[in-house]
């Protein structure tokens, strides 16, 4: 059968631009992510990293360009819920969990499954779902605190809870915005390990300023600057790039 897909890439940003009050936050940005790949995105404050994720997840509509997912869906025409249902999950820069829900309920809400009103009115937890909850809570080391309100978690634990929610969603692509901000060195190392494990079965885009963490991940790096790609390659390659040193690393 003929493959009707536009591109074999999992995610393909094609000439995307968006301006806020005349300020071009994203400027003719093109980027390709292969299936199964993990990509690190770095770049100075205001480079447009979070805005790029906003565009991919439907929060922000670009003025120009296309965002093709799995070669078939133009994400710029869909809303947040549709995009999430297609299989794109997101962890926010500022950890956002449901504070008045328990840790367990946070994961439950994220758990892959029907998202409709009626289905959720009559939803009962299946054995498989219960096992999956246990598994994820164990993985993100929150099993002891499962019945506590998410509001009571520390900053680092909220970060992990959000990663757990991402895992529960089981999306094809995970967008992870600054996962180790506010974490200790030990927690940072554990998070890198966790992301590598997640990458075994999922594609990942991770934005991070922590260079030790990015090095630890050991994946291809894209440097964003003023809304477009400044350099791409291994961390050593981009670190050797003069422009990159000038605008970002050498600050």
């Amino acid at each position, binding site marked *: 059968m003929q493959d009707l897909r536009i591109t074999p890439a999992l995610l393909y940003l094609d000439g995307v631009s968006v301006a806020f009050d005349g300020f071009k936050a994203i400027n003719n940005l093109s980027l390709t992510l292969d299936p199964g790949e993990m990509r690190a995105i770095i770049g100075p404050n205001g480079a447009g990293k979070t805005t790029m994720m906003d565009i991919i*997840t439907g*929060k922000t509509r670009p003025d120009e360009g296309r965002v093709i997912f799995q070669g078939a869906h133009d994400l710029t025409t869909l*809303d*947040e*819920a549709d995009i*999430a*249902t297609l299989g794109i*999950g*997101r962890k*926010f820069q500022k950890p*956002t*969990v*449901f*504070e*008045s*829900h*328990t840790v*367990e*309920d946070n994961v*439950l*809400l*994220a758990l892959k499954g029907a*998202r*409709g*009103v009626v289905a*959720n*009115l*009559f*939803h*009962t*937890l*299946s*054995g498989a779902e*219960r096992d999956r909850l246990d598994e994820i809570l164990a993985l993100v080391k929150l099993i002891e605190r499962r*019945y506590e*309100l998410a509001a009571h978690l520390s900053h680092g634990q909220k970060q992990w809870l959000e990663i757990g*929610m991402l895992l529960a*969603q089981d999306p094809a692509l995970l967008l992870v915005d600054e996962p180790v901000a506010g974490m200790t060195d030990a927690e940072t190392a554990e998070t890198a390990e966790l992301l590598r494990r997640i990458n075994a079965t999922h594609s990942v885009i991770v934005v991070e300023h922590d260079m030790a963490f990015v090095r630890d991940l050991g994946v291809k790096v894209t440097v964003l600057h003023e809304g477009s790609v400044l350099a791409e390659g291994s961390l050593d390659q981009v670190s050797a790039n003069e422009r990159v040193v000038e605008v970002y690393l050498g600050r």
Partner: protein
Amino acid sequence: MSRRPSILTLLGDRGGAVFVGVLLAAAVVVPVLNLAVPPSSPFHVPTHTVVLVGKWLTYALLAVALDLVWGYCGILSLGHGAFFALGGYAMGMYLMRQIGPRGVYAHPVLPDFMVFLNWRELPVAWWGFQHFPYAMLMALAVPGLLAFCLGWFAFRSRVTGVYLSIITQAMTYALMLGFFRNNFGFGGNNGLTDFKDILGFSIQAPGTRAALFAVSALALASGFLIARAIVTSKLGKVLVAIRDAESRTRFLGYKVEHYKLFVFVVSAMMAGLAGALYVPQVGIINPSEFAPANSIEAVIWVAVGGRGTLTGAALGAILVNAAKSWFTGVLPELWLFALGALFVLTTLFLPKGLVGTLLGFWPRRWARSHKPGLSASVAQPAE
């Protein structure tokens, strides 16, 4: 959590069980004390008390409906009085048509106000209202449909917060202006009144009044259980998630607008039922029931009792109205100031309301199961 919600899990906690228990008991005991105990006995409950408390029970149902959308989904409706009034008008239209030829003008079909306006025939909107089941269906369907239309546009366009509140307030205000007009066809300024009987029973008879009281108590208990079923389901957790972090909920794949629409419509229908039970007890429905102030008062009841607790909303409605009855007897001109002061004081010193604050002092286990959005499984982790 894996169990289907049985009646016991819906009661969920002691507070809910006591609440429903008291209502069921009142539905039996109050009519008995009113009808079977002689007035000379200290246990006799006079009819005017039955009617007064029966009216409060319908307010309590309105408060539960409002708490469902505001307390659990963060939709601050300042127009729930409109749904209540529409339900009331549906009942009022049924009651008007029951008068038949016993009106002042003795017209076999047309209510007095239509004869007075020289109308020749019954407007289409009034057709079918001589049938009780149809009128009751309308008492639910009309508020539900209005909520659906308003919610459809507002939630899809992502109107939230204060803008949504203003839209709901404008809705009830517009309806008030409409219903005030004679040519709108619902009795204009005077509204609908002089009712004679309901389902063949005289509306003034103590027996009918006691029965209406009992039905109001049962309706409140049912409304509470339905609301409780909704908020303890996974859908209820989604509602709380929307309340706390709407955009986060979207990124998990939930169509927020569908959830809001569902709960808004259910709530509007519940408010409509409350209005339908209110009208035969007070004997009149007129456009002032649409007054924006009424909707705001309902918000105050919920705030005072404790939003996001359901029982608190109902208790708030009853307590504030009990205070209102007392106040309007003693210092009528000061009531509005007292109500305002009550609202300010609650907001400042009891932000969780009476019930919400009480729960804070209660043993943890009970309090936990009571917090909005917490699963019933929290109270019974081992299964």
